[in-house]
C-alpha cells in the first residue's frame, strides 16, 4: 500500500511538473541592425514575457536582399521561418510567389482574434493590401519622404529660417541665395527614385505607373515621363548645372551630408531624424515635401518606404495562432506608440498616432509629426502606393538614367524616356512569368 501511494505520489509529481503544453516557437527573420536590432529584440522579449504559450525568436539575417535570399533558400529546402521582414520593393515578388506566403488577413481570421483593417492608416497599410482589400503583410517599419533644412545656413544666407520652402520654386530660390552666400551644397537628395519620382507622383496625385501604380493588374506600365515629371527633372538638372543641386549618390549614401552640415536642404527618409538629432550641430527644421503649386490636387500624400512582415506558408496551424497573437500585440496602440517614438518610424494605426499626440511627444520633438501628417489623409487611387514586379531592377534603372542626366550626358526627357522603356521591359517580363 505504501509503495503504491508512493508511486502514485511520484507519478503525480511528474505530471504536475510537466508544462501544460510545450511552448510554440515562432521564428522571425529580420534585417534590423544596430539600435533597431535592439528594438526588435525588445519587442520579442516583451511579448514573450506577457504570455506563456508562444515564444518569438528573432534572428538577424543580414541586409534586406540577404535575408530575402536566406528565406528563399530556406523555403526551397523546406525550413522557412514563420515571419520574414521584406522591404517594400519586394512586395510584388512576395505576392507573385503563390503558395510561399500566407496573407496576414487570412492568418488573423483563422486565429479568431479581432482584426480591423480600418484601424490602420490607409496610406501606410494600403501599400501592402491587395486590390480586394485583403491585407497581405503587416506594415512594420515604415518611413516616408520629408524635407530637412539647415536653419543656421538659412540665416547666414539671409533667408527666413522659420519658413520652410514649401514649393519647388521656393527651393530653387533658397538654393540660389545659399550658393550666393558661399554654400557648396545647397540641396541634395537620397533615394532619388523614391523621393523625386515615386513620392513626387503621389504627392501631386499623378500616376507613377499605369493601372493605379500596378494595383490594377500585371499589365501596368511606367508613366513617369509625363510633362510634369520631365519639368521637375529638368528643374533639378538646371539646378545641377548651376551647382544648386549636388548629386551625392544612390540609396542612402548621401544621408551623412545633412547632419554633418555639408548640404543645407535634403529630401530623404523620415527615419533619418534620429541621426540628425544625434549628430547635427546646428538648428534644423523638418517640413513636408515641396510641391508645384500650379498642379491641382497637390499636395496629396506621400508614399511610404521601409519594410513589412510577411508570413511564410508551410507551418502548423497552432504556430500561425502564435503569429496572429504576436501581430495583435504589435498593432496595439501602446506598443505602436512606443515604437514610433523610439525609432521615428511611422505609427501604423490612428489610435497610436492619437496616443502619441496626446502624450505631447510631438511638441517636445518638433518636426517628428510632419511625416505622419503627410500620411494621415484619405488616399486616392493614384497615391495608395506602388506595386510593381521587378521593382528592384526598375529602381536601379532609374538610378542609372538619372546619373546620366545629372552628368549632362542625357537630357531629362531622354533619360526619363529611356528609364521608362527599360523599366517596361522588366514589367513585361514579370507579367509574362506570372501569368499562369
Amino acid at each position, binding site marked *: 500500500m505504501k509503495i503504491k501511494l508512493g508511486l502514485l505520489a511520484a507519478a503525480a509529481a511528474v505530471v504536475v511538473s510537466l508544462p501544460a503544453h510545450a511552448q510554440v516557437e515562432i521564428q522571425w527573420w529580420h534585417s534590423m541592425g544596430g539600435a533597431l536590432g535592439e528594438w526588435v529584440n525588445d519587442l520579442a522579449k516583451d511579448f514573450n514575457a506577457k504570455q506563456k504559450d508562444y515564444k518569438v525568436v528573432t534572428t538577424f539575417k543580414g541586409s534586406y536582399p540577404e535575408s530575402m535570399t536566406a528565406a528563399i533558400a530556406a523555403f526551397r529546402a523546406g525550413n522557412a521561418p514563420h515571419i520574414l521582414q521584406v522591404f517594400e520593393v519586394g512586395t510584388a515578388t512576395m505576392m*507573385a510567389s*503563390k503558395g510561399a506566403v500566407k496573407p496576414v488577413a487570412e492568418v488573423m481570421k483563422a486565429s479568431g482574434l479581432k482584426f480591423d483593417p480600418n484601424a490602420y492608416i490607409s496610406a501606410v497599410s494600403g501599400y501592402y493590401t491587395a486590390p480586394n482589400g485583403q491585407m497581405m503583410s503587416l506594415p512594420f517599419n515604415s518611413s516616408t519622404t520629408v524635407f530637412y533644412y539647415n536653419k543656421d545656413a538659412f540665416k547666414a544666407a539671409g533667408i527666413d529660417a522659420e519658413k520652410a520652402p514649401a514649393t519647388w520654386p521656393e527651393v530653387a530660390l533658397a538654393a540660389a541665395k545659399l550658393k550666393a552666400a558661399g554654400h557648396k551644397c545647397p540641396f541634395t537628395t537620397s533615394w532619388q527614385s523614391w523621393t523625386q519620382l515615386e513620392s513626387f507622383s503621389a504627392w501631386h496625385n499623378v500616376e507613377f505607373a499605369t493601372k493605379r501604380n500596378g494595383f490594377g493588374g500585371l499589365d501596368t506600365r511606367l508613366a513617369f515621363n509625363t510633362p510634369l515629371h520631365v519639368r521637375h527633372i529638368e528643374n533639378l538638372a538646371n539646378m545641377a548645372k548651376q551647382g544648386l543641386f549636388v548629386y551625392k549618390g*544612390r540609396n542612402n549614401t548621401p544621408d551623412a*551630408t545633412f547632419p554633418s552640415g555639408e548640404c543645407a536642404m535634403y529630401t530623404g527618409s523620415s527615419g533619418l531624424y534620429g541621426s540628425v538629432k544625434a549628430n547635427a550641430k546646428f538648428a534644423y527644421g523638418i517640413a513636408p515635401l515641396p510641391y508645384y503649386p500650379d498642379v491641382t490636387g497637390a499636395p496629396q500624400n506621400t508614399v511610404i518606404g521601409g519594410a513589412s512582415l510577411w508570413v511564410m506558408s508551410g507551418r502548423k496551424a497552432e504556430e500561425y495562432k502564435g503569429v496572429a497573437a504576436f501581430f495583435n500585440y504589435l498593432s496595439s496602440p501602446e506598443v505602436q506608440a512606443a515604437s514610433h517614438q523610439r525609432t521615428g518610424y511611422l505609427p501604423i494605426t490612428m489610435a497610436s498616432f492619437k496616443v502619441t499626440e496626446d502624450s505631447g511627444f510631438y511638441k517636445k520633438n518638433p518636426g517628428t509629426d510632419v511625416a505622419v501628417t503627410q500620411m494621415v489623409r484619405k488616399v486616392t487611387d493614384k497615391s495608395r502606393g506602388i506595386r510593381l514586379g*521587378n521593382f528592384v531592377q526598375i529602381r536601379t534603372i532609374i538610378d542609372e538614367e538619372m*546619373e546620366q542626366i545629372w552628368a549632362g550626358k542625357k537630357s531629362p526627357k531622354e533619360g526619363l524616356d529611356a528609364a521608362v522603356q527599360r523599366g517596361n521591359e522588366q514589367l513585361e517580363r514579370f507579367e509574362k512569368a*506570372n501569368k499562369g
Partner: protein
Amino acid sequence: MAAEKRVWFQSRWLPWVLMAPQLAIIGVFFFWPAGQALLQSLQQQDAFGTSTEWVGLDNFRRLFADATYLASFKTTAVFSLLVATLGISVSLLLAVFADRIIKGALAYKTLLIWPYAVAPAVAGVLWLFMFAPSIGVVSYGLRKMGVDWNHLLNSQQAMTLIVMAAVWKQISYNFLFFLAGLQSIPKSLIEAAAIDGAGPWRRFWTIVFPLLSPTTFFLLVINIVYAFFDTFGIIDSATEGGPGKDTAILVYKVYYDGFKALDLGGSAAQSVVLMVIVVALTVVQFRFVEKRVNY
C-alpha cells in the same frame, strides 16, 4: 598542360585515394549544386521556386540583345587587365625590396600583409570614408591638390576607384606569395652571380625572375580569375556599377541579377557565359604562357 615531370610513381589505386577527399567534397558541394544552378539558365522561375517554366535559350537571347550587357564586356576587359597587371607589378616590387632589407623586415611584412585581414564588409565602408566626394579623407586631399574628385558622376574616376579598391586587396595577397617564392631561391645562386660581377638589376632579371616564374604564373592566373569573379563585392560597396552602368563588370551583373533582382534564370545564363570566357582565357594561359615558366 605542357609541363610534366620526368619521373613519377607507379600505382593504380593510390592517386585515386589521394584525390578522393577533394573530389568528394567538390562533387557534393560544388558540382551537384552548380549543375542545378546552371540548369536554371534554361528556365524562368519566380524567386521562391513555386512555379518553373522551361524557356530554352531565351535567357541567353535576352542577354545578347541587351546593349548594356555587350558594353560590359569591354568594361570587364579593361578592369581585369588593370587589376592583374597593377596587382602583380606593385606587389612584386614591394616583395623584392622587402626581401632585401633586414632592419624592420618583420614590421614591413606584417603591415603589408595585414590589410588582407580587413573584412570585405568593413573595407567597403572604409572606401566610402576615404573617397566620398566631399567628406572623404582622400577626396578632401585631392581637392586641396586641385583634383575635383566626384566618382559618382565621373566614369573614369569611378573606374579608378574600383581598380584601386580591387588592387589594394590583392597587393597583400600577391606580396605574401611573392615573399614565399623569393625565400625558396637558393642564396648560393645569387652569391655566385654576384661574385661573377652581376649587379642587382642583372641578378634580378637573369636569376630571380626566372626562378620566381612558377609563382608569377600562379599569381597571374589567380589574379585574373579574382578580377573576373571575386570583385563584385567591392564594386557593390564602392559604386554599385555606376555612374550609369560604367563600372558594371560582367560578374557584377551576375551578382546583382542573382542576388538582388532575384532573376535566377538570367543570372545563371550570365554565369555560363562568364565561365566559358574565363576557362578559355585560362586554357590560353596554360598553353602559351606556361611555356615560359621555368620549373
